[in-house]
């Protein structure tokens, strides 16, 4: 797990030709046809764009490929549909229509649960459904997206500094603890209580997240292993904290271990209420605004601040950064601390935004792990993470409504498939016979231990 030694590194320049690398040249043709030559026309330009393995198209195709594989799984795992395949050759239409029904029902359900249900829309237009029911899918998507975006930012920020933060889950858990402790432990007016509770979550997550950074800085221990182990430590710690006298809900009728609920004054207000919409069922809350504000902050940090400059420099080449006088260990600690704070914030939005506003064993769900896929899909870029978080939030919201027909694991599966294709653009390119874009394929580079 040591850094590569300078001596082992081959020197490409000794044998490299003295001509500039090709990367600069091919960029021109991409612009020229648009401005000067009108001949290719929009149609053929569009065609060329969609048949090239550029970032946008790889992302889109990854999504589609994952959906196709998901469809295959839905078909083969459905006993009724499988049954129709036993007599496929005598009556193929049965098998095909059964397959089509199973897949289209599943994906239509996903869409209806995530974005808009057309039946409800029709009812709403006819005056039979409330605005609350109509907006419910979007509201659910935003509710799920907020912590996902924050957790994705936590993984993405660490990626920028060359660190793989698999410990987001543990940091989210610590964030829920920090927010909940302030939420029910203090009694303050809302304008103080909410910010303080959010801050409590961020600080708890940040301190916990800094641990792998410190370990890496001091001993060189790889953050992947230490942060995974800390996930389990956090889970056990949560279990202990919940049963603590000070924390435990005193109500003896509770069926399972749960903490006291956070005060009303510390909760994230619901968007519907803030916008004056009378729909008590809409859960979407200020959390999504917090998440987007955090993304903006991270974007600014990376692009405009000296700290972000240092993080990116260390992430891309720790040796050169050290030679230029930057402190690599400090950067590791700061980056992991910052990442942990973002994950902690995700935890805070879970406790302060979603009922029962209290700590339970499953309070953090899988948000931290999902953050990894969100960050990979968003390519570790803040706005990419926002988009990815919204997408996965939608998947999660949709899965809840289709849970009757399909297990929730379907979403985990789809997420993992999407991200595998994203991580392997060369595979997508080969499967779909795409062209290589100017500047090559965008791949995450392997660093080794």
């Amino acid at each position, binding site marked *: 797990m040591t850094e590569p*030694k300078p001596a082992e590194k081959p020197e490409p320049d000794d044998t490299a030709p003295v001509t500039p690398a090709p990367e600069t040249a091919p960029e021109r043709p991409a612009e020229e046809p648009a401005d000067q030559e009108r001949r290719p026309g929009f149609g053929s330009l569009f065609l060329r764009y969609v048949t090239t393995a550029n970032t946008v198209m790889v992302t889109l195709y990854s999504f589609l490929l994952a959906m196709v594989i998901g469809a295959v799984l839905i078909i083969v795992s459905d006993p009724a549909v499988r049954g129709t395949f036993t007599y496929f050759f005598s009556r193929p239409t049965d098998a095909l229509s059964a397959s089509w029904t199973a897949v289209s029902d599943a994906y239509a359900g996903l869409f209806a649960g995530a974005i808009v249900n057309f039946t409800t829309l029709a009812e709403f237009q006819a005056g039979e459904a409330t605005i609350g029911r109509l907006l419910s899918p979007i509201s659910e998507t935003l509710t799920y997206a907020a912590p996902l975006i924050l957790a994705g930012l936590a993984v993405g920020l660490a990626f920028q500094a060359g660190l793989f933060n698999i410990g987001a889950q543990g940091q989210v858990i610590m964030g829920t603890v920090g927010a909940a402790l302030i939420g029910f432990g203090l009694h303050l007016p809302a304008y103080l209580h909410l910010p303080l509770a959010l801050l409590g979550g961020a600080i708890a997550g940040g301190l916990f997240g800094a641990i792998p950074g410190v370990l890496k800085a001091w001993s060189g221990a790889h953050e992947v292993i230490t942060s995974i182990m800390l996930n389990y430590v956090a889970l056990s710690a949560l279990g202990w904290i919940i049963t603590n006298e000070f924390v435990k809900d005193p109500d003896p009728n509770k069926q399972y271990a749960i903490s006291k609920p956070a005060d009303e004054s510390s909760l994230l207000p619901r968007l519907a209420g803030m916008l004056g919409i009378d729909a008590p069922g809409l859960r979407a809350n200020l959390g999504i605004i917090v998440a987007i504000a955090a993304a903006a902050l991270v974007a600014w940090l990376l692009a405009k601040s000296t700290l972000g*400059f240092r993080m990116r420099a260390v992430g891309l080449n720790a040796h050169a950064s050290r030679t230029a006088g930057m402190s690599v260990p400090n950067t590791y600690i700061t980056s992991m601390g910052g990442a942990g704070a973002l994950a902690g914030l995700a935890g805070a939005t879970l406790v302060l935004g979603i009922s029962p506003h209290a700590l339970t064993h499953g309070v953090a769900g899988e948000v931290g792990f999902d953050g990894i896929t969100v960050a990979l899909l968003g390519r570790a870029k803040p706005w990419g993470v926002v988009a990815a978080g919204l997408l996965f939030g939608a998947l999660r919201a949709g899965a809840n409504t289709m849970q009757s027909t399909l297990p929730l694991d379907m979403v985990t599966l789809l997420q993992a498939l999407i991200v595998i294709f994203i991580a392997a653009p060369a595979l997508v390119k080969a499967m779909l016979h795409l062209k290589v874009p100017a500047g090559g394929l965008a791949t995450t580079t392997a660093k080794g231990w």
Partner: protein
Amino acid sequence: MANDHIDLTVEPGEIHALLGENGAGKSTLMNMLYGLITPDEGEIVIGRPDAADPDGELVDTVHRFQSPGDALDAGLGMVHQHFMLVPVFTVAENVILGRETSKGRTGLLDRDSARAAVREVSERYGLWVDPDALVEELPVGVQQRVEIIKALISDCELLILDEPTAVLTPQEINELLDIMRQLRDDGKSIVFISHKLKEVKAIADRITVIRRGKVVGETSPTASESELAAMMVGRDVRLTVEKEPASPDTPVLEISDLTVADDRGTHAVDGLSLTVRSGEIVGVAGVQGNGQTELAEAIMALAPTIGGTIRIAGDDMAHAKTHEIIEAGVGYIPEDRSLDGLVRDFTIAENLILNRYNRPPYARRGVLNAAEIQRRAADNIETFDVRTQSADHTAASLSGGNQQKVIVAREFSRPLKLLIAAQPTRGVDVGAMEFIHSRIVAERDSGAGVLVISSELDEVLALADRVAVMYDGKIIAEVSPDTPRDEIGLLMAGSTGDDEEAAGD
């Protein structure tokens, strides 16, 4: 294009030198010949004795090697510039790798016969080496011997030596040349790749010169050095750097009794003392691996020191941090450009402020000033003649010479008290080399003290006002750059007195 329709013919029992400057395409050619790179077009014809009639005409076969395995089968052996040895293996393990034999039917490695084979070749050609030694613990000269044994043991007919002398002392070079002659007399053919005129003249039977991927001529070793140099570079070469005599002033770098450990824990720098004054260039001459890297890194606080003091402009800097040393007015050109000098995926503009990114005017209160950064980049690109379309292109898109100019621009754009230049022109073309040399001299003339560390003796002699010869972690002599090369060569081999035995191992 690294190679453009090159024709090369090597006769049996000849040493054929392939001469060309860094980046001319020599290594690319040889990697194709060896199957590491597959050529776009062209073919390789190899003549070998017919098995049925060993003394008759050679039988030609046409090849297009897809892998080194093919090349090996065809009787080619290669000693690479970067040794192809597994550091954690023993000599014997390295030698048998790829052609292992087993003990009977057990399937277990037959290490005994491997040892015996190594000893046999060692004795036949006088290449002594312990078959059980771990390669990473051997000096480079011996590692090279292992490479040669590796090639010989597979009965190669054509041996390719890629820049074999770069890492050797003058004495080791002489030994290598002797070995080459012996192999030639044994009937082997040798391709000797080098950019060093003296060696090529000394050993080659025929010389092919290549430039920019093309053969520019074939000649015999009787050609004069300046003829060869002109062919190699394409114009008359200035072998000297124009500069006025130095006017050394106050000391800017005082090192006394410095000791530094390398990654392996041995004392790479061992009680070294050295002084550099403002207005002079001190050149450190020495064979690679005698502690030069660690010396430079210790001055920059990049390698932890065990003992001794480092004073920069009079201040004790032994416990300073790297950024404090940079702040004190020390510029640093690291020897490994792509590893330590640049962030390849950063833009040129970002690389130019890599060590000033958090200082005014490029940043205030933690916020970068994009306009100021762009202004600086535009300014530097023009002044230092960096060939690029835009400051927003990545450093990786630049050629080696232009990457080096970015580093030079970064370091020379502020007043320096001291400049540490390690291998400042490694792997750059002649134009960039001359440019960098003249900037270093200009830096001296404006009052900085300069420490040039280079394994190219010619570079040290051309630049330095004073030459410090480094051997085994110490400065063993300080001489004038006018000192005869032979004398400096002996010093580089560690021989300070009247005896020459120290050159061996």
